[in-house]
């Protein structure tokens, strides 16, 4: 009744439609189930071994073959250390002063989270998505929605946890969003990932005075990231003559190319808890 060509065209159209429907159902999930969990459990041990071998080789190279630069670096570091010791004394003094003030104001401590050190064992194979895989999973207490930090600031958020590994969405990914503040002016907005390793500070009102170099910190209102953690510095501000918001570009404090170890904040509220509420 129908020619082979027509049947084929109809078949392809049906296949595309089914594919799109399946994608719209499964694509909204950024966490894996069943077969995906098996696949990730199979891949991560090899990733761990390869990453450790690379780190070992890099360490050997850095420690034994680059000794020429080490002497000069040592002198510089000694100088920096003496400056840091002096600075540390001042910070200790400030900390004691701060604690006294907190007590006076009956403030609750908000930075006593329990953290877990995790090693980065893999990065996203695609340049379109910015995620990493860490070597700690459900068996270590890691769950979906926990915040991931490094000493420089916020790195990202756990979006999927397997028994022995987890997937972390970095703040530079396009679907990442953090409720944030400008440290100086307390202007509020949302930091969203850009497509070239930068972030955007969105929904900041035009009336706020935001300048290049200002530090952006987490507001803590998203209940995922603790308050006051550094996100990045303002690198560009565009204030147009119309509209109620200004365009602010943020350079993250964290160098995501050199991410090797991260801290997972264990007792922060998870996404599922927030969703349930």
């Amino acid at each position, binding site marked *: 009744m129908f020619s082979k060509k027509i049947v084929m065209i109809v078949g392809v159209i049906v296949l595309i439609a089914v594919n799109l429907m399946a994608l719209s159902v499964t*694509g*909204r999930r950024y966490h894996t189930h069943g077969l995906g969990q098996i696949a990730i459990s199979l891949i991560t041990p090899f990733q761990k071994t390869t990453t450790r071998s690379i780190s070992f080789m890099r360490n050997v190279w850095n420690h034994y073959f680059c000794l020429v630069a080490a002497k000069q670096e040592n002198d510089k570091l000694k100088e920096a250390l003496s400056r840091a010791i002096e600075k540390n004394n001042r910070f200790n003094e400030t900390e004691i002063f701060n604690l006294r003030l907190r007590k006076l104001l009956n403030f609750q401590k908000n930075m006593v989270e329990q953290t877990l050190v995790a090693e980065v064992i893999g990065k996203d194979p695609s340049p379109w998505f910015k995620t990493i895989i860490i070597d700690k999973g459900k068996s270590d207490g890691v769950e979906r929605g926990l915040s991931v930090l490094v000493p420089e600031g916020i790195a990202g958020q756990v979006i999927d946890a397997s028994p022995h590994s987890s997937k972390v969405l970095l703040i530079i990914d396009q679907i990442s969003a953090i409720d944030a503040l400008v440290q100086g002016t307390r202007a509020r907005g949302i930091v969203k990932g850009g497509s070239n390793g930068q972030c955007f500070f969105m929904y900041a009102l035009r009336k706020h005075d935001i300048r290049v170099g200002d530090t952006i910190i987490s507001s803590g209102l998203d209940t995922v990231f603790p308050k006051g953690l550094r996100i990045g510095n303002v690198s560009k501000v565009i204030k147009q003559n119309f509209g109620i918001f200004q365009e602010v570009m943020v350079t993250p404090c964290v160098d995501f190319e050199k991410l090797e170890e991260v801290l997972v904040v264990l007792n922060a509220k998870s996404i599922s808890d927030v969703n349930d509420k």
Partner: protein
Amino acid sequence: MTYCFHIFTCLCLIIFQTTVLSCFPLFNTFYDLSALYIVYMGLFFNVREGIPVALIIGLAMDSVSGGPFGGYLTTYFWLFIGARQLIKFFRVSNYILFPFVVTAAVLTEAVILLGTLAMLEPGVQFSLSVINIVAKQIVWAIFTGPFIIQFYNFTYNMWNKLFNKLIVIFSREQSPQIDRQ
């Protein structure tokens, strides 16, 4: 055994891409080697062998990647179908065709993955850097893709020869025992 070989190779490629390649900033915008493997499978292997491998590797990539789940499954499925359709019109031994095939594969992958992201996350904005990344991927693909396909083919042929040799040796060892019995 052929399935095992293909799946093992693709898993190696995934591990290589997520651990070794990501250590070098130069390869930040390198194209997806697994996608190229699927194209190679489409050009040199039949549907019975290619589709299961494409689906398994798509699933593995979806698990490892941070993109919407199903994006890589879709990409690899259509890449395989596309490559199969292509060999109906061109000869596989036509090496001049390879740079165009790999370019088309890179473009298709970018369009499907970004299209999926745009479809599922309407708020996502794409900047000019997307074009920049795709352009770099295409340049990498044109210059290295044909050689990598040749390398895949060479590795498979070597493995095939080795496997056949092993079978011959094994059957020779088995036959005297059977004769004695």
